Every structure is written in C-alpha cells, then in structure tokens.
C-alpha cells in the first residue's frame, strides 16, 4: 500500500487526518514538526519502505522549533534534497496564491486547503493513478 508521511503540529488535525487515511487503506506515518518529519522521512527512505507521498502542513514549528508561516516549505526543500522525485502535497488552513506558487516552485505536486478530508483522499488517489 502507498506509504504517506503526514507532518502537522496540531494533534487533533493530525490524528483525524491519519484516521481517515488509514481507513482508506494507506500506511500513514506522522510527525509533529519539521525536525521530526525529516527524521521520520530519512528513516523510511533508508529502509525497504520509503515514503511515497509527503503531506506537509505549511504553518508549524520550523527546524529551530519556532512557529513559522512557511516552515512546511523548508521541510519540503530538505525532503526533496534527499529524494528529488518525492511527491509532496502542502496542507494549509487557508489559500494564499503566493505561497501556493512558492510551494510549486519548490517541487510540491499540489497545495491542499484543509477542510474536507475526503477531498485529500481523492487528490492522493488521483496523483497515484
């Protein structure tokens, strides 16, 4: 089954999304900040089961542990340095054109405004097919 990495600092959001994705049959690894996300990704990358898709919250603590508006993009850059072919979806609480453009520039496949989890599931399935 496709393996997803979900990085989000909000525990309830993370858990709710994880539950929905698990039910749809995905393998879901979670992390609550950039540092943890990179560690989890590297561990999977060096194993037999690397991450297929990374779901990265945009606004969360950065690598210094300080909340930052576009910390998810910094993580995206680091992850794609490790795996340039990585598929990544940036998650955000609200749509913002400039940040979406920046996300695509840094290699994100898509930019998803959090709201309806089924929509995310549909997006992932679309990308995988």
């Amino acid at each position: 089954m496709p393996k997803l990495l979900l990085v989000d600092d909000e525990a309830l959001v993370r858990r709710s999304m994880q539950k929905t994705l698990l039910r749809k049959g995905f393998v879901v690894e979670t992390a609550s900040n950039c540092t943890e996300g990179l560690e989890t990704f590297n561990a999977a990358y060096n194993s037999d089961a690397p991450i297929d898709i990374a779901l990265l919250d945009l606004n969360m603590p950065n690598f210094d542990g300080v909340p930052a508006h576009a910390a998810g993009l910094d993580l995206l850059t680091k992850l794609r340095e490790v795996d340039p072919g990585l598929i990544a979806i940036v998650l955000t609480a609200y749509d913002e054109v400039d940040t979406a453009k920046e996300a695509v520039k840094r290699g994100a496949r898509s930019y998803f405004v959090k709201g309806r989890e089924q929509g995310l599931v549909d997006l992932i399935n679309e990308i995988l097919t």
Partner: protein
Amino acid sequence: MTSSERQAKLLGATVRVANNIASILDPQELLQKTVDIICDEFNFYYAGVFLLDDENEYAVLKAGRGKAGDAMLSENHKLKVGGNSMIGASIGSQHARIALDVGEEAIHFSNPHLPNTRSEMALPLTVGTNVLGAVTVQSEEGAAFSDADISTLQGMADQLAIAIDNAHQHAENRFLLNQAQRRARLLDAANEVGRGVASILDLNELLPKTVDIICEAYNFYYAGVFLIDENKEYAVLRAGHGKAGKAMIADNHRLKLGGNSMIGMAARERIARISLDVEGEDSFFRNPHLPNTRSEMALPLCTGYNCLGAVTVQSEEGNAFSDDDIQTLQTMADHLAIAINNANLLNKLEQAHAELLRTKTYEALSSATTEAIHWIGNKALPMTTTTARMMEDLEQPTLDVESLKEDLEMLDTSAKLIMEVKEALLGPARETAPRPVTLSDIWLASAYQTGLQSDTLTVKPAPSAPLAFGDSVQLVRAFGNLLNNAVESGAKNITIETEASETAGFVKTTISDDGIGIPEEMQDKIWASFFTTKGEKFKGMGLAACLHIVSQLGGSIRVESVPEKGASFIVELPAVASIPKADLSNAPQTIAIIAPAGEWADFTKEALENTGKTVSNGIDTNADILLLDESLADETLPSLGELGGKTLVLSAAPSVENITKYLQAGVKDVVLKPYTAEELGEVLG
C-alpha cells in the same frame, strides 16, 4: 571810521567768529553766521563760503549773504577749480586773490546777482596742505580792502577752515560710530537668527521670527521669505513682516521663478539682486501691499547647488543697503537656507518614519490576523472532519465504539478550546473601575485564582511602594496570565517585586521566572493574540490580554529575557498620589482578620487600631465582624459555623461561581476587597 576804530571793530569781529567757531557745531549754521558777521562788522556788500565737491572739481557755494546768497544757493552755484573766477583761482593756487578794482582783474567772474561789486577778495580755506574751499568777500567800493582787512579776514578764514575740517572729522567720526553701532546691531540680529536656526526646527516658527528680526534690527520697511514650490515653478511666500506680510500670506502670494520680480530672478539665477532705486529696476515687482518700497534686496537661499527660495528685504529709502548690510544679510540667508534644508530633511525623515510605522502596523495586523485564522482553522477543522467520519461510521453495520469515543473526545477538546478563547477575548474588554490597589496583594489574589503552588512564588514589596491606580478584577486577570505564562515556561521559582518607578507618578511591578525564556526574535510577537511559543495546547491569548488591560489602565508592559535563563515582565501603572484619611469610628468595635500575612493584613490592622478598634488575627468568636480573605475561604468556611453570619469574604476579583459558593456556605456577604481606609470604612460601615 578812523583806522584805529576800524581796527578795534575787526578785532571784535574776529573774536565773535572765533566764539561761533567754538560754540556752533552745525557746519551749515557756522558758515552762514560767518558770512553775516563779515558783512555786518566790515560793512561789506557780500560774503560767501565755497567748499570743494567730492571730486575736487568744483567749489560749491555753501553759504551766501542776503538775497543774492539765497538765490545762488538755490541755483546750486558752483565755480570750477582753477577756472575763470577768483574763487576757482585762489583754490587752485591755495593763495588769496584780491581785486581792488574787479574791472582790472582778469579772472573775476562777472556775477549777475552781484552787479555792484567793485572790489573782491578770495581767501582759500586751507588746513596744512589741504584746501577745503574759499571765502569770497566783496565790496561796492573800489580799493575797499586795507592790509589790516586782508590779514584779519585771512586769519578768520584760517580759523573757519580748521572749524570746517573739525566738523568734517566729527561727522566722519559720527558716521563711523553709527556704522559700528549698526554693525553690532546687525551681528546681534545675525546671532539671534543663528540661534533660531540652530534651535527651531519648525519652519512655521523660524521663518516669521527671522523676518521680524531683520526688520527690527535694520529698521527696514519689509522682509519676507519665499520657498520654491514642489513643481519648481513658483517662489511661494512663507513668512512676511507686519500687516503687509499677513495680507500677502492670506492671498497665497507667489512669484514666478525667473519672472519679472527680483525674487523670481534671485531664486532662479541663485545670485543676489540688489536695487538701490527700484524705479530703475526692470525686474522690480510693484507690490500694492508695499507702496513705499524704494530699495529692494533679493537674496537666494541656497545649499550647495540647490536653491530653496529667496529672502526679500525692502526699505522706504533709496540707496538703503550698505555693503555691511548686504554681507550680513547674505550670511543670515545662508544660515537660514541650511535650517530650511534641515527642516525639509527632518520632514522627509518623519514622513518616512510614518510610512514605516504604517507598514509595520499593517504587518502586525496582518500577522495577528494570520495567527487568528490559523488558530481558528486548526481548532475548528477536527470538528468538521470528525463529525463527517462519525456520520460515515454510524452508517456501518458494525459500530467501531473505540473510534467513535476517540472522535467524540476530539470534538470535546476542540469545542472547549474555542470556548476558552471566547472568555480570553471577552475578559479584557469588560468595563473597568479603577481604584487604588495594593499590587502585592493583587499578585497574591492572582496566584490564588490560578491555583499556583505557594512555594513557587515569592512576593517582595518595597516598603515605600505606592498604591497603583487600577481595576483589581482586570489586574488579577492580567497578573494571572503572567503567572500562568511563567508556570507554562517551566519556571520553578517566580519572584514578584513592587517598587516606585523611575518614571515619576508610576509604580513598577516585575515578575521574574527561571523558565525557558523567550527568544529575542519572538519578543515582539508574543503580544499578538493567538501567538504562542508553547505549542498547540495553548491559546496564545494571555499576553495579548495583559497588554490590553495594562494599556487600558494607562500603564505599560515590556519583557526582558535571556533564552534558557528565564524572563521578566515589567509592568508600570499609574501610582496613587495621595490617599485621603477616612473616619472608621462607625465600624464595629471588635474585628477579626483572617488573611495571609502581608501588606493588606498590616494596612487593615493599622487602620482599625488607629481609630481605637480591637483587632484579632484568625477566627475570634468574640468578634463583632470577621473579614475573611478569599484565598483562605475554602479552608476557613467549614470551621466558621454560626460565625459565618458575621463574616465578610473579601475578594480582589469576585467570580459569580465563587460568590454563589460562599453565600451558600452561609457568609454574610462577598465584597470587593478594600485597599484604602475609605473603602474599608464603606465595607464595615
């Protein structure tokens, strides 16, 4: 008349001329008196005095006897030096010329005003080698001058020459003295303008002051300052002296650069234009507000290659400006130009600062809005997604109870966080009722309300710390947030200090902790709502509420922190200047105080004992009334029994929940804690 009589008369005339020379200071009067004495005493037909003009080309008549003299004076009668007149010849040769019969004198100048002249004497007025002019003496008789006459009159002429020379020197000295005094006055004026230039940054103050100084110091008719407009098209009047100035400012008076005005020319060409007689000046602007202008000076206001405007100075007199005036005023204008340039730079700096402030404010608002949207989105999102999943689950043939329970817990947690935010937003916005409060006691009340462990907190009030002027309910809320903030940062020790502020009229209270501190780059952001460095469980509302409350009370709050070594929040609040005395005689006689040791207990005991009341500490069955501090209410109420009916619970920030609880436990009342004798009297009265 005998020869000896005439000799005596001549001597007398010489003495009178000498006396006049000594007593008459006005040169014109002296000359006229001299010709009159010569004619009266010697009985001559005519006498006159000529003085050389500035070029030494002509001898100009300055005084003349009788109608002939008046007529010649009015005709500005003058004779060429060395020419065909006895006067001209005597000056040219510096020797007396005497014609005892003018018909035989080749160089006698035949004068139509003096047709009867038969004898004439022209005596040069000399001082040393300098010739100043000549005296003419004429008679109707031929051979009228004796040797004695000639020698007496030459002596008289020599004295007159000395007097004229002295008068010239005196006039020159006076001129030099006036010039020195004027120069000193101008320097004073320049200094005054210089002081203004150095100290006044507001052009609306500096420019009118400068034009007034110029007019008063130089006694000029008018002065004004023009500045070039933004389009560099006009010089616009910014300050003008007197009524004319006011009227022109009201008319928005302006002159086109390079146009037909001295100001327009001076401002465009960047060179001074000076007209000592404006009638002959092509570029003079005839201003109806200044009809009497005869001389005008337009001085450019330049800094480097940049011309900012020009100064106009005008006089009612022709030829009004000396070289000194022009030099001093141009220096003044140069200083003024620097001041105007500085004021313009300051203005630009202020505009840039205001723009920066607007940008920063917008950024701060934008950042706060972003934080709020993010926070609300994250707290509300699980509610919608969880509800959707639960509805799907309920459609399934077999219910996953554990999953449903987990989802319900998520819903509950999200909903509670949102409700807490509602109170955090609403609390600081409640109406305030400022009054004198003891800050150390407010901190203790806050510690009680937040459930802080007492061994964590040390409160150290300075004995001289004044009361603060604030709302105790709001301050308990604000200080509670600061205490929570310290606890959440992992502090093991929290210290509170209260003292008089370095800022007069304020009291300072500082809360210091040994928690993780706040990174420097975060110290500006912590005051925004929904911003937190402590993770998702925290609302990020506490410090924003503190800032709101303290600001509303007219105080300030700031943070100092070294990461990993703790943080200090410094709150400054208005101090109470004086506390009125109060009459506590109506209070019950015996009063029990049940309160923690500290400033409040000491104040209450002292105030009551000073009015002869008996005060006991702790539960006293003989007391007429018991004052119970809210922080000890939970542990004390069960022991009170019947005494509850005599007990007042005192709270710095009573909550509806606690009031209900205490009243149901049987206390007499729950009241706002008093911090002054006046309030104590009202509570006990």
